[in-house]
């Protein structure tokens, strides 16, 4: 009989709409991070490093990139005879076919998958956080406290606590109450969206709550368990944990990697992060290039100047071009004599010569001020930017743009330029 003590269910179906054009074509967990990685690499690597070899990845929104990235799980050693990684998309049923309508609903629709491994515990993860965490230690905590549900929680400054789901726990860690984005928080422990359930408790809750529309862990399942007298515990985590849900926090988390000794250190032998990288060759730094305070990935060629930036694999930066405070993803090619300031440029973008990004004043974005802020220029994948144009701050561009799209060769700060089509 097949038996796994704990299996993981990784929720990777969300769009992450606050990342704007970065997630127009890919699910948020598949967005590149830290040069050669994708966001989902972090929870997946945590799983294998914690000894969890059975992971179901629930996909829904734009799953192509995720599917090809994960494959059969070779980079994470998750290609197993029994278990390993399995992609779980929504599927048609004889009655009541539906999309994944909420986090708990998605898990509910895969009861059979979980059942087939006969688990004692199920770990629920989301695919959009950057952190290193040993889930086995969390499981030990769960067992020690004889818990039914353990929620990983992180202390946050009390003044920021009103942005989070807060758990109120006693000294033992026993949870008494929950507050969702409270005005007057009674605790500073924020839920990280990482749960360990004892399998019978999870199964019972999911079945009982199956008629709940858009059934969600935070809103429905956890309160249900709490109301029914289950033992809920908070597992306090004090390491590096970063939500990269907004362009600002995404940019910041990338920039933190280039500190002299980064708080989130990718260079440690212990707890390696694995990824699927097809580009192997070393990077070339030419004799006109200047590179400082940056991280650069395999196969890139730098002929210009790169400072305070995170460069993905296979990127080419032309002669005389200056790149500062920017994130440039895989296979993007930037022409000569340009200036790239504080920009996020997604994969496989072509930028012409003499292009200036990030000029002008910090005017809020006209269409989506809540998304395109922080003074960033954001360019979606497979976009094309013609030569000799200037682009302001808080702007977003996607698609194949031509010189006509830039009145007088300028895209003013706060503008959004979304064109159909993409570079093939």
């Amino acid at each position: 009989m097949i038996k796994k003590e704990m299996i993981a269910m990784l929720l990777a179906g969300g769009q992450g709409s606050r990342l704007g054009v970065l997630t127009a074509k890919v699910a948020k967990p598949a967005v590149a991070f830290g040069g050669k990685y994708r966001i989902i690499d972090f929870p997946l690597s945590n799983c294998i490093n914690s000894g969890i070899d059975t992971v179901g990845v629930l996909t829904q929104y734009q799953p192509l990139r995720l599917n090809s990235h994960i494959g059969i799980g070779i980079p994470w050693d998750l290609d197993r005879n029994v278990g390993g990684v399995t992609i779980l998309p929504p599927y048609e049923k004889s009655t009541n076919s539906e999309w994944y309508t909420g986090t708990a609903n998605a898990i509910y629709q895969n009861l059979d998958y979980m059942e087939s491994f006969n688990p004692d515990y199920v770990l629920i993860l989301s695919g959009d956080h950057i952190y290193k965490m040993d889930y086995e230690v969390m499981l030990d905590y769960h067992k020690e406290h004889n818990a039914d549900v353990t929620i990983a929680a992180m202390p946050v400054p009390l003044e920021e606590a009103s942005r989070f789901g807060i758990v109120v726990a006693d000294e033992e860690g026993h949870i008494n109450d929950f507050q969702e984005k409270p005005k007057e928080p009674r605790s500073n422990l924020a839920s990280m969206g990482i749960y360990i359930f004892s399998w019978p408790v999870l199964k019972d809750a999911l079945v009982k709550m199956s008629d709940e529309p858009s059934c969600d862990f935070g809103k429905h399942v956890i309160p249900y368990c709490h109301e029914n007298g289950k033992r809920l515990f908070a597992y306090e985590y004090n390491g590096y944990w970063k939500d990269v849900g907004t362009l600002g926090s995404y940019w910041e988390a990338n920039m933190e990697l280039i500190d002299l000794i980064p708080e989130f250190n990718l260079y440690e032998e212990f707890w390696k992060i694995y990824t699927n990288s097809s580009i192997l060759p070393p990077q070339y730094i030419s004799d006109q290039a200047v590179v400082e305070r940056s991280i650069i990935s395999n196969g890139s060629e730098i002929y210009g100047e790169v400072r305070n930036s995170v460069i993905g694999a296979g990127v080419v930066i032309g002669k005389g071009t200056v790149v500062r405070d920017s994130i440039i993803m895989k296979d993007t090619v930037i022409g000569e004599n340009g200036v790239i300031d504080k920009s996020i440029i997604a994969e496989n973008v072509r930028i012409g010569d003499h292009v200036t990004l990030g000029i002008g004043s910090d005017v809020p974005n006209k269409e989506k001020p809540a998304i395109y802020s922080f003074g960033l220029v954001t360019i979606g994948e497979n976009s094309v930017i013609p030569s000799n144009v200037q682009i302001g701050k808080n702007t977003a561009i996607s698609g194949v743009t031509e010189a006509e799209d830039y009145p007088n060769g300028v895209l003013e700060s706060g503008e959004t330029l979304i064109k159909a089509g993409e570079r093939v």
Partner: protein
Amino acid sequence: MRAVGIILAGGNNHKMRELTYKRAVAAMPVAGSYRCIDFALSNMTNSHIQKVAVLTQYNARSLNEHLSSSKWWDFGRKQGGLFVFTPTITLENGSWYRGTADAIYQNLDFLKKCHEPYVIITSGDAVYKLDYNEVLEYHIKKKADITVVCKDLAPGEDATRFGTIKMDDSMRIQEFEEKPMVANSNTISTGIYVIRRRQLIDLIEHAAQEDRYDFVNDILIRYKNLKKIYGYKISSYWSNISTAEAYYQTNMDFLRPEVRNYFFKEYPPVYSKVSDLPPAKYNPGSYVKNSLVSSGCIVNGTVENSILFKKAFIGNNCVVRNSIIMNDVYLGDNTYIENCIVESRDTIRANTRHVGENGIKIVVEKNERYAL
């Protein structure tokens, strides 16, 4: 499939000096992110050869570690796959491989059990790209018994460390001299051969009966008038790394854009074992010019006209010029390195100076890294 592959990777070469103390030539790291044998293995897989035997003998630990999984070259298959043959004691035989032909003889069962009609033999110590199917087509068209892939060296290059070849107009080999004292031809054998499997088995068995063990001397040269041995000339990049100077030069060739593009960007790709290292990191004070930098490196100092292999650490105020820094080297602060090959896993103390005065200096320094 029409052919099986054999990669001869057992050799050592004293001209590599200290570099072979810890590994076979085929396991030498090349071009920052690769091992030399990756080129032969990638050529095999890119030529759709699915069954490949690697014959190892000398100091094979490092090579075996590199080949521990065959999936990186797509050899992890039910049909065929990668076979690593190290000498073993059997009922009939208790010797090491006494030569290239003997190495094949001791594993003749592998060839006998195959059904593919042809065999591609290559060595593991050269950097090149080649579609073996083109050579095979030529071999069939010429109705050859053996086809030897050869190359014209540029004027001035030393041919005496290779086998030199003279051919007639039909490309049939007339003269073949192994490592001659004086080279009278600048056409050399690349050590890549195509031969019918049955033919190879016969020749190898025959050589073994006569106590002859070397493929070049005892088969190619001995049979050159008896068998139809043809040359197939390549003009693409091919470089054998088996002297310290050639190893240095081959690596430095990758600083040239045409060589880099040929191997790194043009189809088909070269595969290697994936090492899960983070991107290279450039800290304040880093000054890098005309250099290749591999993943996992951390640079705090100056690097010029050099190649940093994986996971090299360059301390503050270091200067590295015209040098090769191999895998996992730690250079302490204020180190000066010029015209050197720094052996992998070296730890160089701060304020050290190494300069290759007449030619390339090989630096082997094993200090305690974490006591620094």
